[in-house]
């Protein structure tokens, strides 16, 4: 309760957008055919917030956020739309030189795979130092001191000794701390964490998440978490965007999504949470497969997998319907003309608690 109040309070303070994506379309060419990975996504990110992007594998979470840094694979491109950051339209960037102004300095990224993300032949000190020299302009002894301070900040004990060690001398969790240290050393404004804990074991996951939360406060970062794990979301995010087949189908404050989710896909995601299932009953799983991105998608992309889909879901794609000033969803169920559709049991229970709050 207290936590929720606090989030609301903070929500009012953050009015400024730090990054705005508008109608972003991203395509890839694969064996001569073109697939549309991101289908007209718009998203405003508030300065200082912590946003989670959730969705199944292949929904486009990584592609979407990589496009903010010009890190799309070579066979992909931004087809239309804009990404406004600091008065610039990143979607218009053509040359690597333009991106060098953004990468690290403005937006940094922590990847999923800490075991391979570091150069095995360079000491971790040097690898962090590269970022310090590049983005903080420090040299020599000063740079080294800064690196040691950052290593300490990310919870690496005995940083002076660790400075000269190589990645293979670190465990997975420790390597992820080094990767985070590199990102922090760039002094970015936005930190994107692409499934930062997926490859780690559970106890380490919690440590890394706490570290990221602390660093966010300390360095006043705007953070974007990409995850399949709604448990992570509840833990770290102010807002949640639910992504499906290359579109954000629902977005709102974390508690709005958890307790008052509106899109049938959000329901499905929530119902598959172990915490919401009943003991002894099999866990809910979403039937069917995501749509083929090589073909144009008609109507609501989730309709074919939704047993209670409306007729219109197959014909017209729904616009956003505002649920609250901070919460909107793309589902025809929110249209005043729509028939009443009962959400699943688990969701109904959550809603009851929402009303109580």
């Amino acid at each position: 309760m207290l936590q929720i109040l606090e989030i609301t309070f903070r929500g009012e303070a953050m009015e400024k957008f730090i990054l705005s994506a508008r109608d972003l379309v991203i395509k890839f060419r694969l064996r001569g055919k073109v697939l549309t990975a991101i289908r007209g996504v718009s998203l405003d990110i508030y300065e200082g917030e912590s946003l989670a992007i959730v969705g199944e594998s292949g929904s486009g979470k990584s592609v979407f956020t990589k496009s903010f840094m010009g890190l799309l694979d070579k066979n992909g491109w931004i087809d239309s739309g804009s990404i406004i950051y600091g008065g610039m339209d990143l979607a218009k960037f053509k040359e690597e030189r333009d991106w060098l102004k953004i990468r690290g300095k403005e937006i940094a990224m922590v990847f999923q795979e800490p075991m391979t993300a570091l150069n095995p032949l360079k000491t971790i000190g040097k690898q962090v130092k590269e970022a310090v020299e590049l983005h903080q302009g420090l040299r020599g002894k000063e740079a080294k001191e800064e690196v040691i301070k950052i290593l300490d900040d990310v919870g690496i004990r005995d940083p002076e000794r660790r400075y000269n060690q190589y990645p293979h001398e670190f465990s997975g969790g420790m390597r992820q701390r080094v990767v985070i240290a590199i990102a922090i050393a760039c002094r970015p404004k936005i930190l994107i964490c692409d499934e930062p804990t997926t490859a780690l074991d559970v106890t380490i996951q919690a440590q890394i998440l706490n570290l990221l939360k602390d660093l966010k406060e300390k360095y006043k970062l705007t953070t974007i978490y990409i995850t399949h794990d709604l448990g992570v979301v509840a833990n770290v995010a102010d807002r949640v965007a639910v992504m499906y087949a290359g579109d954000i189908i629902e977005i709102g404050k974390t508690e709005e999504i958890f307790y008052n989710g509106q899109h049938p896909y959000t329901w499905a995601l929530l119902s598959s949470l172990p915490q919401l299932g009943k003991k002894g009953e099999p866990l809910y799983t979403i039937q069917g497969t995501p749509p083929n991105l090589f073909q144009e998608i008609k109507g609501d992309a989730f309709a074919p997998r939704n047993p209670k889909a409306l007729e219109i879901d197959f014909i017209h794609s729904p616009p956003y319907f505002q649920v609250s000033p901070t919460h909107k969803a793309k589902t025809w169920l929110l249209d005043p003309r729509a028939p009443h559709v009962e959400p699943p049991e688990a969701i109904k229970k959550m809603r009851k608690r929402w009303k109580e709050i």
Partner: protein
Amino acid sequence: MFNYIIKRFFQSLITLMVVITIVFALLRLMPEEGYFGEGYEKLDEQQREAILTQMGLRDPLHKQLLDFYKQLLRGDLGKSIIYRPKVDISIILNDKIPYSLRFGLSAMALSLLIGLPLGILMALNHRGFWDKLGTAYIVFINAVPAAIYYLFIQVYVTGIFKIPMLYSESNPLSWILPTISMSLGSTASYAMWMRRYMLDEMNKDYVKLAKAKGLSGPRIMLSHVLRNAFVPMVQYLPSAILYTIAGSIYIESLYSIPGMGGLLVTAIQRQDNTLVQALVLIYSSIGIFGLFLGDILMALLDPRIKLSKKAGAR
């Protein structure tokens, strides 16, 4: 690190001893004429036996092997029998090695100077013009028997530029073509390895991270990719280089260069058993030494090798 070197050193030593023993054994299987100089025909059975006994070749095998080792330890490679009868093999080699060294070193320098940059260029220009051109060259060198383009170069290029066909000490112009020919193969190998290892590295995750932290493309290439690609290269370089220096057997005979390679061919043709034995030993020691050196260099450059013994991660 020190322990690693010692360990690798003893491994090499054992390999060398195995090779020596095999060479020794093989030579006992060779026809015995190879131990007689001129006039083998004129000797009768008894005289032959007497000579062989005197040379120790009728002793029990284990004693022969032991003697052989003792002799090698003294640095004595034995005496030539047919090629230059009764002359110490080390003296013969002393005359030959400078030539092989001179051509080998220049060919090596040439192929490193061209091969490595070519490989780098091919990797940077992956699937582009330079990559295709380089690949065509590598395929050509590997697919066409060397003898064909060696001959082609010798016959036609000498004709076009009016250079003497054979090596002559006094005419430096005649040194050019053998050097170039010798470097063609290793240039292709260096380029091929370099390209492959660079591409391997370029696709690794750490390059993505380096990019994400804002390093420029050239900087990533120089301080991450190139350096890492050299580590696997370094393992093969010493043996490749040593072999080039040891002289190209074929090219030396083609251009009549009085080097080690030509010597081996002659020794085999004329069945000079002790000389063949000595040369085979030299070539194998060079190979074993090259591998040893490669492993040591690799361990120096790759921290993961040094620490393989200690419990690393925590």
